[in-house]
């Protein structure tokens, strides 16, 4: 096993670690850094539970070698709330029953945040596209789509659409 040094930016902290060169970003986050919001679902790129932002763009952390994150900026769900104040997406997911078992939720919120960071006023089709790589086995997706649209409306300062 090759031990290599790695430095990167994680949710506003500078991380310096020695890692095994074969470690995925997902495994580094969960098993070494103890940040377990990012979920390990399939390890194949198929479920989206491990979605994180790398330099602002959603990627699947199970398919990213941690070593390839040198010098990059990684954002996970842990960094989405502001000192304990939930992000509008998190509140909308709670209010709209968009999480049942909750396993897909971190990936869904990261995928949704990537959309809203770029496009504050998405239509329903754009929301569906944004979460099209994220599987949910519980909700049937509709409450998730509604929650993302509600959070977008709130963030734009408008009224939240009632479901």
């Amino acid at each position: 096993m090759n031990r290599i040094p790695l430095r990167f930016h994680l949710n506003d902290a500078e991380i310096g670690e020695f890692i095994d060169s074969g470690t995925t970003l997902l495994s580094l986050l969960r098993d070494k850094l103890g940040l377990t919001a990012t979920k390990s679902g399939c390890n194949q790129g198929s479920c989206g539970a491990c979605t994180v932002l790398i330099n602002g763009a959603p990627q699947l952390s199970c398919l990213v070698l941690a070593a390839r994150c040198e010098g990059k900026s990684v954002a996970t769900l842990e960094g989405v709330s502001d000192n304990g104040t939930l992000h509008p997406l998190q509140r909308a997911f709670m209010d709209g029953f968009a999480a049942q078992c909750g396993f897909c939720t971190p990936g869904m919120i990261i995928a949704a945040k990537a959309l809203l960071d770029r496009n504050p006023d998405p239509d329903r089709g754009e929301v569906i596209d944004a979460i099209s790589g994220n599987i949910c086995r519980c909700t049937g997706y509709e409450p998730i789509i509604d929650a993302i649209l509600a959070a977008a409306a709130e963030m734009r300062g408008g009224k939240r659409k009632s479901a």
Partner: protein
Amino acid sequence: MSVALRAAASPREACRHIARRDARLIAGGTLVMNEINNRETVTASLVDLASLRLRSIKIANSRVTLGAMTSMADIAAHPKLKFLKPVVTAIGGPAVRNMATVGGNLHAEAPYGDLGVALLALDARVTLETARQRKTMRLEDFYAQHRKLGAYLVTAVNFALPGANRFFFTKAIRRKPVSASVVAVAAHLPRKGKRLAGPRIALGAMAPHPIRAKAAETALDGKALDETTIAAAASAATEGSAPASDPYASAWYRREIAPVYLARLLAQAAGQKS
């Protein structure tokens, strides 16, 4: 398992390294990392292409050149490549599209390789480097020969911009809005007057790599698109194909559905204003 990762210094250096060490190139990693996570690859000595300047989209003299490390998301966002948007936005979700590259897609086995299907219909050329030389070949020849090329690295693909409303793509899927292809169909349909002139039709998931539907092309060449010619092309669609059965569809179903999707695509093309 042990994985060694090294940054490629140049295309040639990368080729020399993979030839000597039995190493693999890693681009977006969406396929390579799957193999590693599934432990299908025992030795993983990886050469990282991200250090090479291969992520670019250039359009000059009506020819498009895509660097091998260009992502599906880069293509989707390009204002002059709107005709490829239906192709690349049908590949995975946004996270996969941010990672998946052009070079990787040319090496994806069926049912993957949707961009390759489009590029085959567009008669793309592939530029690759070996440890000794640079070559450019037709994508069709690349598919037939690349396993015999030894150590090489694709640096770019290029193709002529199709005319407005001359390029069409569709794919049959099991799960909306995105999933792997049951079958993918791309058609480039240049015209002289009302008649098709040199149409190219490519199919995905109908063989281990994208193939041309040459019998369907012959049925259409020099003809106007109407019900009769569309039916003739559809009935010739699967000639020469060799689809596999996989979790998405059986070979039988693929053979049944390919003519239907080709006919629908051609009907859509016939309905377009010229």
